[in-house]
Each structure stands twice: as C-alpha cells, then as structure tokens.
C-alpha cells in the first residue's frame, strides 16, 4: 500500500447529504423516514444537545464569565462551535470589498444557536422583479410552498398570531408569550410612530406538540440550545436525532467534503472527503447527492467539483454558482429608558428572543429604496455576563441616582448603589432587511489559496448598493423616532450617517447568506430547477440557502426547511418513478 490512499466505503447509500443544518437535517429526516438509506457528511464535531450542555449555567461557571472567544464568538455559553474564523480554514476577500463569513462546525450547524425567528416568505417575496423590476422572480410562488410551510409549522412548532397580513402569511401558530415590560413601552412608542407591532414568530414550543419534546421553561437561553426540554428548533434535537432512530442514517463527523464525484455521464456518484481526525482521504457513494453545507460552502464544493463533463464546476454550466450572494441588511441602535431605573426585580427571561416584532409595514413604491425590513427588539433584566457594568461613568455621571446627581465614575458603596439602580433599563432595536441579489456580488475559488486540507478556498467580492444604504438610513430614522416616543435616551448607534453607511453592518454579519446556487426556469441563468435539482446533473440537489433567488425581509430558515422538505419528497417520488 502506498503512502497516500483513498478509502472507499462499499456501502451504497440512497442519498449522501453534505451538511446537517436546517436543510440537511430536514432532508435526512424526510428521506430516512421514507425508508431510504442516508449518509450525512458533517465538517464539524458530533454534538448531542442532551449531553453537550451550556443551558442553565451561571456566569461564574465560565472562567471568562461568558466572554466570547474565536471558538464561541457569541459568548462562552452559546451553543455554536466556531464562527468568524476557523483555525486552518482561511477565506479571502477582493480588495475594497467586505464579507464576514460565519461557519458553524458541528452536527446541526448554526441551528443549534440561531434566533428561532421563523417567518414565512409572503406571495410578493417570490415575485419581486414583477413588482419593482429588480433582481429576478422565483420559479415558484407562495402557493407552491404554502403546503410545506404548513407542515413545517406542525412538525416543528412555532408561536405567533394570525394577523391576516398580505405578505406575512398566517400559519399554524402556538400561543405567543405576553410582552415584557420594555416591550410594552416599545409597543406604545412604535404604534405612535406608525410602526406595526405584532407578537413575534419563533420556533419555540409554548405548548407541547408531541411526546418527544417538552415545552418552554422561559429561561431565555435558546442560543444555548434547549438541552433540557427540546422546546426550540434545532436540527439536532428535532430532525437529526429523531432521524437516527429510524436506523437509516449514518453520520460521518469531522469530514470535510472535497468534491462531489461524477461519472462519465456527468451524474453524481458520491462524495470524497478528508477525515479531520486521521487526515485520511475517503469516498462514499450514493444514488443522489444533496448539498446543504451553507450557501457559500455548497457553492465552494460545487466549484471545486470539476470534471471533464463539468469543466466549470458541477451544476455550473450557467456560470452562476457563487454569484448573487447576499445577506440580510442589519443596522441597530440602543440606549436606556430612564423610566425603568430602579425597577422592581422579577424573572423576565421569557423565551430566547423578543416577544414582539415589527413586520415590514410600508409600501416601497412610496420610498426611495426598493425592499423592506423587519425590526427586532431587546432590553430588560438579562443574565449578567462579561462586559456588565462597563463604563458606568456615562450613566452615573449623567443621570441622577435616587434624585441625586453624582460625579461620574467613583467607587465604594455609592457605586454599588449605581449598578443596582441602572440594571435592567437598557432597550435597543435592530432592522433586518432585504438586500438585492446582484450578479456582481459573488464568491469564487481563490486561484492562489488552499486550506490546511488542500481544498481551494473562497474569495469574496461583495459590496452594498445604494438600495441597502438608503434602507439603513430609513431604519435609523425609524428607530430614533421610536426611542424618542418612548422617552429613551440613545447611547449608541444614534450618530451614524452617510460616512459609515448609517451603521449598515458589513455584508455577512447578519449570517443569512443566500443566493449562490439559485433556482430558476432558465438553465442558462440558474443552477437549479424549481425542485432544487441541478439543471446539469439530475441526481444532484441543493437544499440550503444557496437555492434562494432572493431572501425577503425575513429570516431564511423556515423557507430552507420548507424547500428542503419539498425537494426531499420530490426525490422520493422521482426514485419511485425510477427517474433517479
């Protein structure tokens, strides 16, 4: 045997799924329950929420008191492994462009820590070009995906209210939690400003929906994943581990996919990967290959899968793979609400996230930017963590404490009084908007750089357009009006202007990347057909954010789940018809 060998597994699967987040998890769940043999290739570590626990920990149980590290950029108790940078796995950016790339490396991916904001796209969101002439329409409409949204609502569970809104469709909702104190203030202030407020829509069980999962215990820690009650949606708790119970699923963790393998006819035959633990090369074979590695990783895998039949990368005869990359826009500001100084203490953890939100409430035809945004809110008495009490001088030097104006800063018993006095008075808000999916915003293989596994890396080339910047300006104006109406004082994010794009976050920062393997009816302008199936390779599918034509002003997870369910059932059907 030579020093470099490739180990081929003899078992042939019905489906090989690359990635185990929302898209991969749903595909595994549907296919395994239909009796198909499934292999999941996951680039990160195994993770079992029942054993790997960060929920209900106190700040002093972390020696860094919950501070973030490169391993957990959202704090030491957050459930997600890795994030903005991964040792040995670089990516590059074209000079003068921006992209921050979040990569979860664990079973279940980022669904283990996400915000659980579960919004259906509305009828208009699939047909934006027909409305404003920009971008492209999807090859499907709301009516095509509605039955799958309905089933996702029932299978996974989501709370909210049916409001009869045209572009924020009704669903099958569990009852939402009552607003917290600061949310009542926000509701009043926003309503005065003409901004609509409705109960938020989060995939958290306020009532049990089956015997497998419990209901929410209101610890406010969904970002740590619900180890104890499985009351929020993560791919691990709700899809992967239940799918494993069928006996039809094998998981290969720490496996970094290198290429999708194809045969002389151009059909997918399997996936080659490197095992990160033993650094050996492996191959698995299957009837179908489903990529769900995240929009950018899926694009990277396809672009790296070159063959005689697919010289431009797999599913890329159209040359669109990697293009139309877009993230949600984001801008935020925050401050304090003096009415809440010296407030009474009680447990207001609630669910992990806001109890109310603002769906897009205006008509873009009357505005100078084409797409909308929704608003998320926060505030109140949360668990202290690293950073608590920072720069008290800007509070105790500015506001009277118990009627007494002090000098800034200080020390001693008087200072302790100040920390207590100001605790729980914070409020803030953030907009999450639709960015235009532009052909000129893309990721491509960097011809010069490989990662530690020898896999060519992505180079990003993304810039915001005027549309997103104008939208951020509008967000900031709206937020200021709400804060003013509430009597809140803005302490950060209030001075943004044209010089910093009104505080618009750099693209990638909101971690809703989509569009890189988009679907369409025209094989010259899209990688996938309306069934998430590659135009160029009928047994190859993409079921993550890559397939999106546009991503609306809504978080994309619920649509990934619905599309993955739809594609998976199409696969089962096509296999029955012997088309695959």
């Amino acid at each position, binding site marked *: 045997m030579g020093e470099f060998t490739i180990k081929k597994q003899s078992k042939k699967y019905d489906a090989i799924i690359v990635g185990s987040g929302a898209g991969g998890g749903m595909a595994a769940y549907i296919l395994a329950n239909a009796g198909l043999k499934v292999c999941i290739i996951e680039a990160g570590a195994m993770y079992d929420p029942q054993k790997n626990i960060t929920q209900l920990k106190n*700040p002093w149980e972390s020696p860094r008191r919950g501070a973030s590290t490169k391993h957990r950029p959202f704090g030491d108790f957050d459930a997600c492994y890795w994030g903005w940078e991964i040792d040995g796995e670089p990516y590059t950016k074209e000079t003068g462009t921006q992209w921050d790339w979040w990569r979860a490396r664990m079973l279940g991916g980022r669904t283990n820590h996400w915000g659980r904001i579960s919004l259906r796209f509305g009828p208009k969101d699939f047909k934006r070009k027909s409305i404003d002439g920009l971008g492209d329409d999807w090859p499907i409409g709301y009516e095509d995906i509605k039955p799958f949204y309905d089933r996702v609502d029932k299978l996974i569970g989501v709370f909210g209210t049916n409001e009869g809104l045209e572009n924020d469709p009704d669903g099958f909702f569990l009852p939402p939690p009552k607003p917290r104190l600061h949310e009542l203030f926000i509701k009043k202030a926003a309503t005065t400003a003409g901004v609509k407020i409705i109960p938020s829509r989060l995939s958290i069980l306020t009532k049990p929906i089956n015997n497998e999962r419990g209901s929410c215990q209101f610890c406010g820690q969904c970002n740590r994943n619900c180890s104890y009650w499985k009351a929020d949606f993560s791919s691990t708790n709700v899809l992967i581990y239940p799918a494993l119970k069928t006996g039809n699923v094998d998981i290969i963790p720490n496996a970094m996919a290198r290429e999708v393998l194809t045969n002389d006819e151009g059909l997918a035959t399997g996936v080659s990967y490197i095992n990160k633990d033993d650094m050996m090369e492996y191959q698995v074979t299957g009837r179908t290959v489903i990529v769900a590695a995240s929009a950018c990783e899926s694009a990277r895998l396809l672009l790296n899968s070159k063959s005689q039949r697919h010289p431009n990368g797999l599913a890329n005869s159209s040359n669109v793979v990697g293009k139309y990359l877009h993230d949600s826009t984001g801008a935020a500001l925050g401050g304090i609400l003096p009415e809440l100084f010296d407030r009474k203490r009680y447990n207001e953890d609630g669910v992990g996230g806001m109890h109310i939100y603002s769906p897009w409430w205006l008509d873009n035809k009357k505005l100078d930017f084409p797409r909308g945004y929704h608003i998320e809110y926060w505030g109140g008495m949360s668990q202290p963590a690293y950073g*608590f*009490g920072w720069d008290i001088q800007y509070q105790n*030097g500015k506001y009277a404490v118990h009627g007494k104006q002090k000098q800034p800063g200080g020390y001693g018993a008087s200072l302790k009084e100040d920390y207590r006095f100001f605790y729980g008075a914070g409020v803030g808000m953030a907009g999450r908007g639709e960015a235009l999916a532009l052909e000129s915003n893309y990721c491509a293989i960097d011809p010069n750089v490989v990662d530690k596994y020898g896999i060519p890396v992505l180079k990003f080339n993304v810039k915001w357009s005027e549309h997103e910047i104008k939208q951020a300006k509008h967000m900031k104006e709206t937020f200021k009006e709400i804060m003013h109406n509430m009597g809140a004082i803005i302490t950060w994010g209030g001075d943004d202007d044209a010089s910093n794009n009104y505080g618009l976050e750099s693209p990638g920062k909101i971690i809703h990347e989509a569009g890189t393997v988009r679907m369409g009816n025209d094989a010259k302008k899209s990688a996938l057909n309306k069934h998430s199936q590659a135009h160029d390779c009928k047994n190859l599918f993409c079921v993550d954010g890559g397939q999106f034509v546009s991503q609306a002003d809504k978080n994309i997870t619920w649509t990934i789940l619905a599309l993955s369910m739809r594609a998976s059932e199409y696969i089962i059907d096509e296999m029955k018809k012997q088309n695959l």
Partner: protein
Amino acid sequence: MDRRKSIKALVLGTAASSILIDACKTSADKQNPATFADAFAGLDRMKEEKAAYNKIVAEPDFFTKHEMKTITVLQDIIIPKDAVSGSASDAKVHEFIGYIVKEKTELQTPLRGGLRWLDLQCVKRYEKSFVECDNKQQMEMVDDIAWPEIEYKDEKGNIKKNGKVKPNMQQGVNFFNLLRNLVATGFYTSEIGVKDLGYAGNVSNRWNGVPDDVLKQYGLAYTEKELKECVSFEKI
C-alpha cells in the same frame, strides 16, 4: 513632594526598592484554576477549546505577587462590603482578573503600566508603594483618579460635561476606569454579585407576563387581544 526628593526616593528609598524587587518575582499563589475540569465543570467544550484553555493556564501567572496585592486592595475600594452584599475579594474578583488578562492579552499593558504608574505616584507623594500607604493616603490617591470627566449630549442635543480631572492625572484615571470595569464585571458575574443585582432568572419558569403591581406602577395594561391570544398559566 518636589521632584528631586521623589527621584531620591526612587533611587534610595526602601519603599521604591522593595516594589521594584518584588515586581520581578513571580507569584507562588495560583491565580486561576489549574485544570480544565476545575474551571468548566459540566460545561460543554469542544476539544479545541479544552486545548486552548489548558495552554493558557499552563502559562505562568501574569501578575506578580505585588501587583496582585495592589489589585486586591483596589478592588475592595471599588466594591467594598456593604449592607447588601460582600466585597470584590469575597467574590474572588482578583482570581477572575488574574485569568482574564492571560486570555485577553490586550488588557496586560494598560493594567501593568497603570499599576506601576500608581506606585510611582505614591512613591513621589508618600515614599511608599500604594499597598504600603496607610488608608488615608490610599484614598487621597484614589480620589485623584476615580472621577473621570465625561462629555455627553442632553435631551436637546447640547454638549454637557461632568467631572473634573486634575492635571497629569488622566493616565491614572484611564487605568482606574479599566480596573473599575473589570472589577464590576467580575463582581456582578459572581454568585454574590448576581444575587446583589437581584437577577431572578436562569431557572425553569412560567412566564405569565409582567406582574400586576409592576403594570400598575407604570400605568400599563395588557390589551384584551393580548390576554386572549397569549399563553398564560395558572397562578401558583
């Protein structure tokens, strides 16, 4: 104290020499938990995190014994025991600071430099290092650096100022601001501090809305729609 006298104190004074010698010694006391298992009992960690943590704690402590003694005196001036809760020392805030500077290395220079700045000031004034000063002298020194000057906008957007820093004290003020931040964060994330704040969460709970007396206090009420559509639980 005039300048010549302070230079003399630095060169010849026992106080100055004792600080400088002590500053070179490494601490024999452990400033943070030795093993991963002690530090993260039961908290999920991936293998790369364990390796990174073990590497940090295997390194020698950053602060010298003298520096740690100074931090300990200062932390109890910032957060002393009062009628509600214990002191920063009771909450072992210095142990947290001893660890976090090894992880967040950007904190090292401002803290080390600030501590030495403080000692030099005390040597000039009292011919003693800060910890060797009596309580009155320590508080005189602290009062010169504990009250920063801030600038802010009032509700009408006018620029306002509060506080006044003596000449040549701004470096000390910056140091004290940083130390106050770290001590406050360390204290209010400790068991004693969380209890002091009255944070009542991190437990299994039934969220039934804002308590009635609080709604009344702020003149707020849930709408009929909210009461009808939201989840509610029987009062226990």
